[in-house]
């Protein structure tokens, strides 16, 4: 094992939060090294000929290679565990830029009540409203504290959207329920699909408040504060699960990584996989050990270790890194690593067939559509409802390729024959005549829902896989039933020829894609008794290890997590740059 030259900060992976840290810390004069398991890649040439849905969508070309490492799952602590052998529920990425290369660009802020969830519900409805066995807790940070960082991130990457609440003033056409923003979106919203227009009309007729999806995709050309100049979206139809060939989609490789590299103080070591955080005297981290491209173990000393991988990676690294001071892993002195694992609902709820229409849904992307927030979080009264929380309803998404869509046709409740001449004729007439309303909803933490190390299955690095214990709870079934009725009513109002609504939620399964939004497992909190880290992601029991990303979320709101994990990274990186190195053993306040 060779020992590499020491750096100030080493990051696990070169995804978006690592890139944000690299940009902010190298600007402050520190050396940053990212150790990334996947390849180096840029829009040009790596993404310039990738319009191949078989390779990218069906075969998951940009995702973590499951041959090497996967995640095992069981629905509850009494059920048998099996590894996820092929992709299903979620799609963590590999390679420089991480999942923020193949993300769909849906870019949200959380609502104010998402940050003080427990307090909010108890004040409004009383203690008994929260479901049994929950581990819901307030975040250690408020919306107000995070707003300047939301604002900076959105201007740094060029978010497209329609402003709904500017400094408390509600603006027509935007999201009237959003938390107040200090500046409008930097760019106007993206174009929306035909069924999204029909959807918006139907929603308004029913008294709801449709608005265009805010997107980390440029609606027009944009130059950021570092001088990156990027194209507006071409609506090519190859977006989620692809890299953007014209840099219209915001990705770490066209935002934060170029200015970090330009300082000369940032290095990315690709095809190299961190296998543990090394611990030294007093339980402090001394760096990491990784396996390089040739399969050789290397030791990388560093003053600060940043766990900036995907949710699962960060939790697994904490659990795998042990010493006499931390016999159960870093951050786990109180047994809290892996707790508060949450996910998100993502279901096509109601589908309508519009005979004779051609919707061109193969154009655009996942963000070219309208949304309502009328059933999000607690913006609607839950007094007479048998659940807490909610989610949003999307109109029909773009970038609908045949490989991922013909299999689920025809639209019928009777389970019509899905092969043969009749099916072929149906596809010919109706493949592009279908609109779907999608529900994305929040997920709460429970005692019997957590992450730990699998006792049986191992990754190619010889260490245990991370095991998920997760299933939906009664609150989820009740919430889904209520939301599905609303979606059914909206679809009816849209006037399809035929309509199919899934009225009840099925138990969780790991084979159907439902969003790459697993969160929690290394949550932030106000003290070591309720959390693994403080609000900067600094691990209570190992102060020179920091965690970034959605692993920090105590529970998962009903919108995509990326828009919030980036501002959290800004706040933490600035705290490290300005305050940490003066006194590296101290917990930041």
């Amino acid at each position: 094992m060779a020992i590499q030259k020491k750096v100030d900060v080493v990051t696990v992976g070169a995804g978006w939060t690592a890139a944000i840290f690299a940009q902010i810390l190298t600007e402050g004069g520190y050396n940053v090294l990212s150790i990334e398991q996947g390849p180096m890649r840029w829009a040009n040439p790596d993404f310039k000929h990738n319009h191949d849905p078989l390779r990218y969508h069906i075969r998951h070309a940009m995702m973590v290679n499951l041959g090497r490492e996967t995640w095992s799952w069981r629905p509850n602590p009494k059920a048998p565990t099996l590894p996820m052998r092929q992709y299903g529920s979620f799609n963590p990425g590999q390679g420089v830029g991480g999942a923020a290369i193949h993300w769909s660009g849906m870019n949200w802020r959380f609502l104010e009540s998402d940050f003080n969830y427990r307090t909010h519900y108890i004040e409004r409805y009383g203690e008994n409203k929260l479901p049994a066995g929950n581990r819901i807790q307030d975040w250690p940070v408020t919306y107000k504290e995070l707003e300047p960082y939301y604002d900076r991130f959105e201007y740094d990457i060029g978010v497209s959207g329609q402003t709904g609440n500017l400094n408390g003033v509600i603006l027509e056409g935007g999201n009237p329920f959003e938390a107040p923003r200090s500046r409008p979106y930097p760019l106007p919203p993206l174009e929306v699909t035909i069924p999204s227009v029909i959807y918006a009309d139907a929603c308004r007729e029913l008294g709801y408040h449709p608005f265009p999806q805010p997107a980390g995709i440029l609606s027009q050309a944009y130059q950021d504060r570092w001088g990156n100049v990027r194209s507006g979206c071409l609506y090519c139809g190859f977006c989620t699960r692809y890299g953007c060939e014209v840099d219209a989609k915001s990705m770490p490789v066209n935002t934060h990584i170029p200015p970090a590299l330009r300082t000369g103080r940032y290095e990315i070591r690709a095809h190299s996989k961190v296998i543990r955080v090394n611990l030294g005297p007093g339980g402090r981290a001394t760096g990491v050990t990784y396996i390089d491209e040739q399969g050789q173990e290397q030791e990388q000393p560093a003053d600060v270790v940043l766990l900036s991988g995907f949710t699962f990676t960060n939790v697994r690294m904490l659990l795998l890194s042990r010493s006499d001071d931390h016999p159960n892993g870093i951050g786990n002195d109180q047994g809290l690593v892996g707790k508060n694992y949450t996910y998100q609902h993502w279901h096509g709820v109601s589908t309508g067939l519009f005979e004779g229409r051609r919707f061109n849904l193969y154009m655009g992307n996942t963000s070219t559509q309208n949304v309502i927030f009328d059933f999000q979080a607690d913006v609607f009264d839950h007094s007479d409802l048998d659940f807490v929380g909610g989610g949003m309803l999307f109109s029909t998404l773009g970038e609908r390729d045949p490989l991922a869509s013909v299999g689920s046709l025809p639209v019928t409740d009777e389970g019509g024959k899905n092969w043969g001449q009749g099916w072929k004729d149906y596809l010919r007439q109706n493949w592009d005549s279908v609109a779907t309303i999608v529900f994305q909803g929040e997920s709460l933490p429970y005692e019997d829902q957590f992450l730990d190390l699998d006792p049986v299955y191992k990754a190619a690095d010889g260490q245990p896989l991370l095991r998920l214990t997760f299933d939906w709870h009664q609150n989820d079934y009740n919430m889904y039933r209520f939301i599905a009725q609303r979606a059914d009513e909206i679809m009816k109002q849209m006037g399809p020829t035929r309509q199919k609504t899934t009225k009840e939620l099925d138990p969780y399964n790991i084979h159907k894609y439902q969003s790459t939004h697993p969160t929690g497992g290394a949550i932030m909190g106000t003290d070591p008794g309720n959390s693994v880290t403080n609000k900067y992601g600094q691990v209570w029991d190992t102060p020179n290890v920091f965690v970034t990303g959605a692993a920090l979320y105590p529970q998962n709101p009903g919108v995509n997590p990326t828009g919030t994990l980036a501002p959290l990274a800004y706040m933490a990186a600035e705290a490290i740059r300005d305050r940490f190195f003066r006194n590296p053993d101290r917990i930041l306040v």
Partner: protein
Amino acid sequence: MSDEKIPTEKPQSEEKPTGHEVTLLLMSRRGFLRAAGFAVAATGLGVVTGCDTPPAEESTGALPTETVPVRAQYPEVPYAPIVPPPADVLVFFSPHEAQTVEALTARILPGTPDDPGAREAGIANYIDKLMGFNEGFAEPTYRQAPYAQTYEGDTPPDQASPSNQYQTVWVSKDEIDRYGFQSLLTPREIYRAGLKSVDSFANQTAGSNFVDLSEDQQDQILEAMSKGEASGFDNPSAKDFFARLRDDTINGMFADPAYGGNRDMVGWKLIGYPGAQRAYTPHDIHTEGPVRPPQSLAMMHQFHPGQLANSHVAVPVSGTEEQRPEH
């Protein structure tokens, strides 16, 4: 059974490279940094190591010789071939198996020369070449034991059962579907066993092999398979094998023609999908009906920022100030 070579090898030809080939050439190790775009090239300061090499060069099929993993042991997803693989060369199926696959898929998506279906699109060719790569696993798959066994009823077989001398994960038959793909068999083994079962069921119920039956008789067999009512199937089950055939028919019919199916883009013409396009305008998005003739990866305009992507849209320049208006 030896590993077949990946169907993505670059042919050694002197022909002018297509757009796709240019991409692969640019991704070679030496060419990478030169072509890697503005960020690295413009600065020369940042350090980027461990650059990617195309998968075509890295899959050796060699057995692991060290305890530490090296990338080559876990092939990534293959790139689309530059030209479609020849339909008259079989890399996995026997001629009889290929004919049976053709007959089966032709009942899932029937066709005539005027209205092409699975046979005319070359689906059997697509599946044969799929089987040629990594035992048929085009998608990286976790293959570590122990595998699952299912049981019916409330409790798994007791510890005294002879099958319990081996490590097994017992899962209720009602629950196993929640766990996704858990087959011990490779796709190659699934096809070999499934096709044998199709013929034995055909012989048992209709007196001859599947390919020799009338279309009506073939439909009855597929119907029985799809409902799980066909006897004699063990692993894969009749229902699973039907689902696999249907999935592969869809993938072959609607994937890029480079993979050997969707010949002449007949699948895309059937449903009105224009394939691999560079751009649509907001006007296109709101104009119902076909706005472009279909186009495959090989037909795609070469990507040079600033050039016209097609008759309507200029590809904007990434990394410069320049952008041309649409229309």
